[in-house]
């Protein structure tokens, strides 16, 4: 699976949707994922990609990690993979 597919699978599992129903422009709220679900998604991404995601639930918008849409999350994960490689 590509990085995109793996992230979509993580989000789809959390949203209890089929991966095909998760579109890149959807926000997590659109998919019915609440704050707890978001924290679980980030945990699954960290475990799955062996990266550390900078995220504080007190102020998600202040985090460097963009969670505004599925596409934004994919881009942010790819950036972290590059930054944290090696």
């Amino acid at each position, binding site marked *: 699976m590509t990085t995109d597919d793996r992230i979509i699978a993580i989000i789809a599992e959390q949203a209890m949707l089929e991966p095909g129903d998760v579109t890149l422009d959807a926000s997590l709220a659109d998919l019915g994922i609440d704050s707890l679900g978001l*924290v679980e998604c980030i945990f699954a991404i960290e475990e799955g990609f062996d990266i550390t995601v900078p995220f*504080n639930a*007190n*102020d998600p918008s202040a985090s460097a990690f963009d969670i505004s849409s599925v596409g934004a999350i994919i881009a942010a994960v790819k950036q972290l993979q590059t930054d944290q490689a090696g």
Partner: protein
Amino acid sequence: MARVVITGAGTINPIGGDVPSTFAAMREGRCGIGPLDIPDVERLAIQIGGQIKGYAETDHFNRQQIALYDRFTQFTLLAARQAVGQSGLKFSGALADQSGVIFGTSGGGLNTQDENYRAVYEEGKNRVHPFIVPKLMNNAAASHVSMEWNLRGPTFTVATACASSNHAMGQAFNMIRCGMTKVMVTGGSEAMLCFGGIKAWEGLRVMSKDGCRPFSATRNGMVQGEGAGVFVFEDYDHARARGADILCEVIGFAMTSDASDIVMPSKQGAARAIAGAVRDAGVPLDAVGYINAHGTGTAANDKTECAAVADVFGAHADKLMISSTKSMHGHLIGGTGAVELLACIMALRDGVIAPTIGYEEPDPECALDVVPNVARDAKIDVALSNAFAFGGLNAVIALRRFA
């Protein structure tokens, strides 16, 4: 119904090893939060906490006691020694038979669990010390206090996360009020600052890496602390008959459940508990001069708590003072309500309102008088202490100045 008063108080916490030093620290707005000194701290994303520095268990307890006393039990016994000592009570005969102990804790002997899981999993040991179970159990502290002072009545431990101590003290209050007993030793304790205890909290992503700034627009999460607060609650007539020094009166208690979300707080649940405690106390809303807030420093708690206070008190919400001493000692989780009750006692008895330190910038969603950064002199008649736990469980205590 019997009136209930407090005739003894004790504590050990990150800003003081007893009540006078804690009051002094609260008056000065001293911060007890700093870098954690625990094994494997370098593997934690959160490396600060309200840790009791310079604490050596061997200064207070012998080898046999340490084999049975987890850190949370040690803190409880040290605080209980001060509280019972101040009360001047000796427990024998009928008084001993009816006097009991109710404490709150969330993690109980978490350090004992952490150390022994390390031994069997990490170090591969196949044998643990024989007393691990009686050392780690959540009721260990209550049982040891009962044994130490011959308290033979109702004794148990309450675990409702961050509301544990307030729930415990509420039970003690009502037992005396309804005539079941004349004296209860109550409060709570927590010692969760070990690798596993912090790692678990870290996972929730609600912890601050740099400090606890309740109600400030710049707040970014909670900071854990450790310690204990213990009080002697006593029937007023009993206390008066023996000429006891009365610290303040306990006049009301209420508890509610949000029945909505396992971690997100609810304004309605908090408001019902606050209003319920004032109603139970039988005082008008505008008698309340000070609230020791739950004030964790998370985005969600502080704005929800301020909205609940505004809802309950209406225009009077702008006249009362509300501060969070967690800014100084951190969040003692199951022990937090007990240590925070001290700020209410200081307000009522000494006329000094503990500040919310670390306050940097107003938050329009927390637009109350949060006593920013500097303690204030004020004569207060009634004070409340709020506790709102994960699981949506809320418990609020009301105290009155004993003139």
